[in-house]
Each structure stands twice: as structure tokens, then as C-alpha cells.
């Protein structure tokens, strides 16, 4: 394993800094991750709106002044919200790192929720929801959470729904923010050319005022008695399906096995997995088959997706379920497992040289209880055996844990439920 110097520093209870040094970078990346997301929404869409408002203005800087401050230092700043976190992420030329840290700290510490700006942000979020729902791919992927966790807080889209977004008021956001400050952990990850101690010092000095008493809300998924099928009807040229199995989360000992299962099917790290081979290379059914593991701290979803012509849905879905079932029924040959591990290690090493990817990986792994030290992370991957990987698949790929979300012109629910039943038995 190539060595990457990573430093973890505890600032106060619930506030931690993770720093990684890479001498040849021209830019630095910083992530402020707050451990509270849409799962904790008092009204669906609240966390997402609150986080976007941070990117819009602060109590000192109006929207124009804040946006100009970012451009002045050449920073690209994004806000992202998921079920368990809200984050602000910036990439900035190295010489402007300190200014960028101060700006992000201000955005984090001094949010402002004036009604006039909230009205605009709500319009923006409704539009974002509509955009997701008019595209078969994003609609299918978003709705898989609803299918896997029906009538639960994990299930609703992070953006909320147009009707719930409408109900959010400045008071809702203020109360959510107060509660977040009392309960949610804060992780700052920073990647740059300075030594890791220097990076941590810089991050620490930007955060002088912050003091948290974290006792984060525990996410408790409930598994239903049966699998679910969710259809979204769209006037589109192709239909996209997403199949998901409920798994353990990133803090579980199963996490390294789940990562390799994801690679085996075809992840973002390694897209040419079994789905790519079976659906695309052998049969030419689809352009983008793939798998994604969405691992929160206590639970996750191992998903597989593909977009195909409407008449090919049954064939593609059966094949996808077979690829998943094979993970459960047959242990991977030792040689293949060894190759998968080597590839995983090399891809992680390459990824750690990219500032935004590295800072996000560090912040998420720290928050969700996975390894942040690359060597420890890889030693856990190395320890996975073919049989315990199969057992992990066996635990999740059961008829009650697998659901389907499908968008476009899908077959009937009855047909889909039968295919799902056959495919998981």
C-alpha cells in the first residue's frame, strides 16, 4: 500500500478534523460534514433546504456578497445533503486555502433564513425534485429508497416533495438548525499540499467558536414482511429499473465484504463487473448497467440498475437478479477475489490523490464509522474471504429484503412481483 499521511484530530466533543497531505497538489479541498440529514427532517425536504440556504447567504453576507466572496478566491463550493448528513465542500487554489476555510466556517456557523430568500430556495428545490422525477434513471434511483423503506423516514426523497417543501418556514429551519447544533457531530476533512498537522491547525483555527454536545439521532430502519415494487410512469424512450437489497451499514464488520460485492457487480470504482459483462457486453441490452452501495452508518442498500428498451425489461431484470443471486449462491473463485482486492486497493490509492474525492471519502468514512486510515481500510479488505463474502450476500439477498423501483413504461406490478419472487428464491 502506498502511504498517505492521514491525521485525525479531536477538537472537542463531537468535532473532529481529518487531514490528508499530498505535496504535489495545486489546490486544496475542504469538507464540512454535519451528521444530520433528511432522516431527521421534521418536514420532508427540511435538511436539504437548510443546507442550500447556507450556500445562499450568511447572517453577515447577502446572497450577492457571499457568491462574490467565493469567486474572489476562486473557490468552487457545493452543498450536498443525504439521509444522514449535510455537507459543504469546497475546492480552492492552495494559496487561498485559509480564506476559503474562514468562508466555509462562516457559512456553517452563521446561517440565515429570511423569508424572502427561503421562498426562492423552495422554488429551486421543487424544481430540483421535478427534474429528478422526469428522468427515468434519476426517478428510479430516488424511488428505490421509498420501495426499500416504505412509510419510513429513510424512504422519502432527500429533496422532499413539492407539497412538503411548501410547508417549510423560517421557524422550521431555525429549530432544525438549533437542534443540529446541539446534537450533530461535525467533521472537517481537509486535503492539501501542506503537512497534515498544518492542515489540521488551519482547520482548527477557522473553527474557534464551535462547541458541540453531540448525541446524534440513531437511524433505525425497519424491514417489512415482504419485498416491494414501486412504479413511476413516464413518457420516455427507455425504462430504467433499480433493484436494491437492504444491507448492514458502513460501521458493520460486513462493510468491506459489501464493498467487494459492489465491485463484483460493477461499481463506480470498477464498472466492468458482472452486470456490465452480462447485460452490456454479452447481450447489448443497455448502455449503463451498474451497482451502487449506499452505506449509511447502521444500514445500507446494495443496488443494481439498468435502462433498457421497454420490451427488454423482463429479460434485463431477470439477468440482474441472477447476477445478484449468484453472489449469494456461489463463493467467488479465490483468483477472482484476489484480483478484485488488488484492483480495489489500486483504485483507492488513485482516488486518494484527487482532492475532492479524498476529502469526501475521509469525511464520510469517519462519520459513518468506517476506516479513515488507508492501510487499516485495506487490511480489512484483504481479510475478506470468498465464503464470508457469500454469507454477507446471503444475509441481504432474500425475498423480504429485495425491492424494485422502475420508471418509464414498466410491466404490471403483478409481473414485476413475480419476477422478483422468482429471482430471489
Amino acid at each position, binding site marked *: 500500500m*502506498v502511504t498517505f499521511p492521514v491525521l485525525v484530530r479531536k477538537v472537542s466533543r463531537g468535532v473532529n478534523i481529518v487531514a490528508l497531505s499530498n*505535496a*504535489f497538489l*495545486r*489546490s486544496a479541498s475542504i469538507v464540512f460534514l454535519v451528521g444530520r440529514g433528511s432522516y431527521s427532517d421534521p418536514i420532508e425536504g427540511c435538511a436539504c433546504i437548510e443546507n442550500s440556504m447556507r450556500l*445562499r447567504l450568511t447572517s453577515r453576507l447577502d446572497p*450577492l456578497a457571499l*457568491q*462574490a466572496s*467565493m*469567486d*474572489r*478566491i*476562486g473557490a*468552487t*463550493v457545493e452543498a450536498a445533503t443525504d439521509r444522514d448528513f449535510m455537507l459543504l465542500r469546497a*475546492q*480552492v*487554489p492552495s494559496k487561498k486555502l485559509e480564506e476559503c476555510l474562514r468562508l466555509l466556517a462562516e457559512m456553517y456557523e452563521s446561517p440565515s433564513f429570511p423569508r424572502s430568500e427561503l*421562498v*426562492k430556495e423552495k422554488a*429551486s*428545490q421543487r*424544481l*430540483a425534485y*421535478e*427534474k429528478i422525477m*422526469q*428522468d*427515468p*434513471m434519476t426517478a428510479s434511483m430516488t424511488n428505490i429508497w421509498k420501495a426499500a423503506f416504505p412509510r419510513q423516514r429513510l424512504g422519502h426523497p432527500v429533496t422532499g416533495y413539492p407539497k412538503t417543501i411548501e410547508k417549510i418556514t423560517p421557524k422550521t429551519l431555525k429549530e432544525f438548525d438549533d437542534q443540529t447544533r446541539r446534537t450533530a457531530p461535525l467533521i472537517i476533512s481537509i486535503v492539501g499540499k501542506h503537512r497534515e498537522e498544518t492542515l489540521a491547525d488551519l482547520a482548527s483555527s477557522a473553527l474557534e467558536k464551535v462547541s458541540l454536545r453531540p448525541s446524534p439521532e440513531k437511524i433505525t430502519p425497519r424491514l417489512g414482511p415482504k419485498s416491494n415494487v414501486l412504479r413511476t410512469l413516464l413518457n*420516455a*424512450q*427507455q425504462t430504467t429499473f433499480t433493484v436494491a437489497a437492504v444491507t448492514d451499514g458502513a460501521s458493520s464488520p460486513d462493510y468491506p465484504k459489501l464493498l467487494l460485492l459492489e465491485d463484483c457487480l460493477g461499481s463506480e470504482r*470498477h464498472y*466492468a463487473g458482472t452486470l*456490465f459483462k452480462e447485460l452490456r*457486453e*454479452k*447481450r*447489448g*441490452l*443497455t*448502455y*449503463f448497467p451498474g451497482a451502487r452501495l449506499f452505506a449509511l452508518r447502521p444500514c445500507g442498500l446494495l443496488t443494481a440498475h439498468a*435502462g433498457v*428498451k421497454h420490451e427488454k425489461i423482463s429479460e434485463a431484470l431477470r439477468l440482474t437478479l441472477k447476477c445478484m443471486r449468484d453472489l449469494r449462491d456461489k463463493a467467488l473463485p479465490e483468483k477472482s477475489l484476489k*484480483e478484485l482486492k*488488488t*484492483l480495489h*486497493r*489500486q*483504485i483507492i*490509492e*488513485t*482516488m486518494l*490523490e*484527487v*482532492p*475532492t474525492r479524498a476529502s469526501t471519502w475521509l469525511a464520510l468514512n469517519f462519520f459513518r464509522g468506517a476506516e479513515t486510515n488507508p492501510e487499516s481500510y485495506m487490511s480489512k479488505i484483504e481479510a475478506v474471504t470468498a465464503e464470508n463474502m457469500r454469507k454477507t450476500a446471503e444475509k441481504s439477498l432474500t425475498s423480504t429484503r429485495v425491492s424494485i423501483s422502475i420508471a418509464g413504461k414498466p410491466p404490471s406490478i403483478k409481473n414485476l412481483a413475480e419476477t422478483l419472487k422468482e429471482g430471489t428464491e
Partner: protein
Amino acid sequence: MTDTETHKFSNGLQLVLEKLPKAKSAGVAIGFPVGGRTEKPDVSGISHYLEHMIFKGTKTVKSVDTTFDKLGARNNAWTDVDATIYIAESPKKYSINVLDLWLHLLSEASIEPEELERERGVILSEYFITEDNPDSLVEKTATLALFKDHPLSTTVIGSEETIKAITHSKMHDYFRSLYIPANTVIWVSGDLTMDKLIDCVKGDDYWTRNAKGPATSYKEFKPQGPSTTELCRPTKLLQVGLALSGPTGSAEERASLQILGSMLSSGQSSILRRRLVLEAQLTDKLRTLTPCYKEAGMLFTTFATRPDGASKVLKILTETLGELRENADMPKEHFENARNHAIGQLTASIDSSMMWRTLQAAWETLRRGHCSWDELIAQLETLDFKEFKKNVKEISRPERTALIMAGDVKEGSTRKLRF
């Protein structure tokens, strides 16, 4: 500062090494000036289709992805209107093997008829994704609408009809005539030495021979706009695209296009972000691209809006373009902020993955003959405000404008538009 070393083979092949002494990984890119602009209209999409076929292997390398996997490498390829580039990133120790593998695949690709047929389904699936996604649909239409009768007027992916019309013999001939050493640029970034790279290229006879292909001819672009394109689709939202053709050639003009991109739409405080997102809330976000082809540059921005906001959007767009043309009162502070944003974006993209870094460098080399990150940053840093304003006046001329709208648009609804 980054250090590059170039070796030009007698057959025209250009090999560039970007030396990164502390890098643990390495990137390899191999590019050809082959894209939409080199295609005949009846086989539009053949360059992109060929790119897919390269991944089908050779007589000796049957499974391309497995072979890359064994080298710990991630690979990909990109076809644009003017170039096709194959890329990979890997641990440093395997980078020569990765280069060797690409050279083999790009000279010995089998392109079997059966594979060609199977891949047609994949290409059509990709085509339908772009049809189903309004953002991609508008993007692929932008070059078509903006460059009109010029060879840059192409969609890269082609149409359902042309994809279906591509035969095995046409594909084979296209491959053999255009993937030749004289056309090739190889860019490698990493902690490596030029000697080893040269040896690797020389190790494959194909890349040292003096095969001649058709000379790539370039044509001056003359703006023919303004144009408006309406794409009727049953979507709830309306996708709007605005494309401006930029002059190309001099460093000042090019830097102006990049900074204008930041000032108009990609910067956090850009004019359109301010007006459409922060003030009128007509959209949630804008996406901007500023490719600089050899014959012309393009500034393209796209966003979704509700149909009832369309007239306001069009008013803002036309007013903004008018202000850019009459830019006597443009505040210098806006220019400086946009310049810093453009530098930040360039720095961030240099620091992105090795694949992306080498892809951009190979593109730049194919289009301009060389690439130096420091030079590109310096061009942005030294651009004079007066020069910028002069260039912006030119870029925002109505003749250089194309507007594309996709969604439930009434045919002819944009015809009255006056830029």
C-alpha cells in the same frame, strides 16, 4: 510548475510526458483528431461507435476490461466533435503496461461483425438516454445549432437512423484510414522517464510505420446566427440552452471565452446565476461548458425552468446578451472575480483524477499542438480588462448566438426572439 517533454516521431506521432515526480499514480491518454466533424452525414455517430468497438478487443486480448483490471487501471474513452481520446489511470508501476495495452488495442482492434451488431444495441441505448434526458438533449443539439453548415455542426452520437446505417465495412475502413500514427497524440502524466515511453512505442511496429491517411482539413468558421431550435418533448419542465461561438486562436481570445463563461454562468456570482437563480428563481442551477475547438470556441450553458417562466427567461437572456455587447460600464470587480473563478476551475481540473487530467491535456495538444498548465493559467492571469471587453463585444454578437429549447414548447414560440 510542471515540466513536460515532447518527442516527435518521424511519422508524425507526438509523444508528451508530463513529469510529476511525487505522483503515485499515472495517466495515459491516446488521442486522434477523429470525431463528428470527420464523419459523412449518412454515418453520423461512427467515430463514437468506433470508440466503443475498440473495447471489444483483439485476437490476443479478448477481454479488455479484465486486462486493464489486472493492471489496477481504470479506463475510459471520450468522443467529441473533433477528437476521440482513450484514457486510463493506474499505479505508476503499471503505466508502461497500460500504454502498451492501449497501443495494441488501437492498432489491432478486431471489430468483428457479430460484436458490431451487439454493440449497436448499446449505442442505441446510450442514444435514447440522451433523448430522455433534456439536459443531454439540449447539449448535443448545441453544436448542431450553433455551427450550422460548418463541419463542427454534429451531434457526436448520431441519430437512430444513422446508427442503424453503419455497416461493418464502413466501420473497418473508417478505423484503418484514421487511426494512424501521423494523427496520433500520446500524453502521459506521472513519475516516469521519456526513454521508457519511446521504447514502448517503438516496440509496436504499427506505431513506427509511415502510413499516410487523409489529411485533416480545417475550415474557418463564420458565424451564421442567430438561431433558435425547438425540440418538442412531453416533459413537465422546459430545458433551455444558450450557446455562443467564440473566436479561437489567440491566447487573449481564448482566455476571454473562459472568463466570460465564469462571468456569464459558471461563476457563483455570475450574471445568469444571479438573475435566474438568486433573484428571479427561474431555475435551480446552470451547467456551463467552454470547449475551444481548433476552428471555433463555444460557450454553452443550460438549465431547466418551468414553462410559465419561459418568457421571463428569454427576456433575461436577451437583455444580458445586450448588456455584454454594450459593456462600457462593466465593473472591473466583476471581471476580477470571474478571472479568479476561471483560474480556480482550471486549477481544480488539473488536480482532478489522472484520467481527467490527461484527457484534457491530450485534447489541448490535438487542438493546439501543445499543452502547458502554467501557460494556460498565465493566459488567464495576464488578460487585460480592455482586451476582455473588446472580445466580449465580439462573442456576444447576435450572429454568434444559438438558443435551444426542449420540452412542451409550441412550435415557433421562439421565432419572435430578438437578440
